[in-house]
């Protein structure tokens, strides 16, 4: 794993993250990717959100919940990877749509900007992983929710 981020594991930055991330990183001695960006300009992304058919309500913190918080089958071997504790966003709508082709009732797409106040990011374009801070405030977000078809 990259060396740069050991710094972040030992300083106050790790405290900014939810307990599931802190515990996972400590338990499995995980480090962030060395290319992780802690400071960055807003970047436009697309993310899948779950909504009922007629529900296009505003994006909230809940829409950026990592599945590491609610582990399920098939994820047991992934707990040692740093991005397991983050959430997925995409810089290209098409890339996300390709991921969502398989059935899932209630899937919608939110488009908006990631900001450094939400947490650090790791870019492997078109994918961007975001590790969300515990106190990330999404109330002023500019995400718009639409159908993905």
């Amino acid at each position, binding site marked *: 794993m990259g060396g740069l981020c050991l710094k972040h594991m030992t300083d106050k930055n790790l405290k900014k993250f939810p307990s599931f991330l802190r515990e996972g990183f400590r338990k499995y001695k995980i480090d962030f990717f060395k290319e992780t960006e802690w400071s960055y300009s807003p970047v436009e992304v697309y993310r*899948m959100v*779950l909504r009922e058919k007629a529900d296009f309500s505003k994006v909230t913190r809940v829409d950026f919940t*990592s*599945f*590491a918080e609610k*582990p*399920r*089958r*098939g*994820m*047991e071997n*992934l707990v040692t*990877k740093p*991005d*397991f504790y983050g*959430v*997925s966003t995409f810089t290209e709508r098409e890339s996300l749509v*390709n*991921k*969502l*082709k*398989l*059935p*899932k*009732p209630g899937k919608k797409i939110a488009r908006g900007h990631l900001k450094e106040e939400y947490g650090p990011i790791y870019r492997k374009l078109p994918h961007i992983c975001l590790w969300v801070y515990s106190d990330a405030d999404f109330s002023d977000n500019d995400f718009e929710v639409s159908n993905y078809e």
Partner: protein
Amino acid sequence: MNKVYFKIDNHALYLDYMLEEYDYVPILYVCKDEEQERYLVLATDFEKESYLISKITLLDLNNMLLGKLDIRSAFLNQPKFWSVHCNGTDYQDDMVNEYETSSYPKEYLPAKDEFYVLYDEEHKEYQRRIAKELKDTIDKIAVKKVELQFGENMNFESATTEFFDWSQEVDIENNESQLTFVNDEIGLYAA
């Protein structure tokens, strides 16, 4: 010992390969049972952890990975499949229902003409592994068929020409007629 993912029809299923995930949530993957039969697993609901599972032949799996068979057809080619609702991470708590393919609500299946795309080298390597396994199976079928038809001492090379053109190595990707024939034979001879 590998972890048991599901129990279907009294067969424990183990992960063979993860084909697609989102936020590390498995969406589409392949499992194997103790008899090396393969199953295609599709997550139909992220939140409720529901899955659709069907058996899949090596030929269909290979064609699906190559983008020659759509994912929907990979399910519909089977006479039955299973709907699994998870109640936790332990398969023993699952609620499993068996369906005739014809009676299952089609909205939970992938759309028509939705093809899988091999997007990186690791996935391509899995496809090559499946293709090799398919070819090995074809070879076994041919040998058994020759033995049954001509006896064990029959010259293999000459006898198999009754069934296949073995003058060239089987082109798994491009010889549809041979593969269609082999697919019919697999149930009879691939034990």
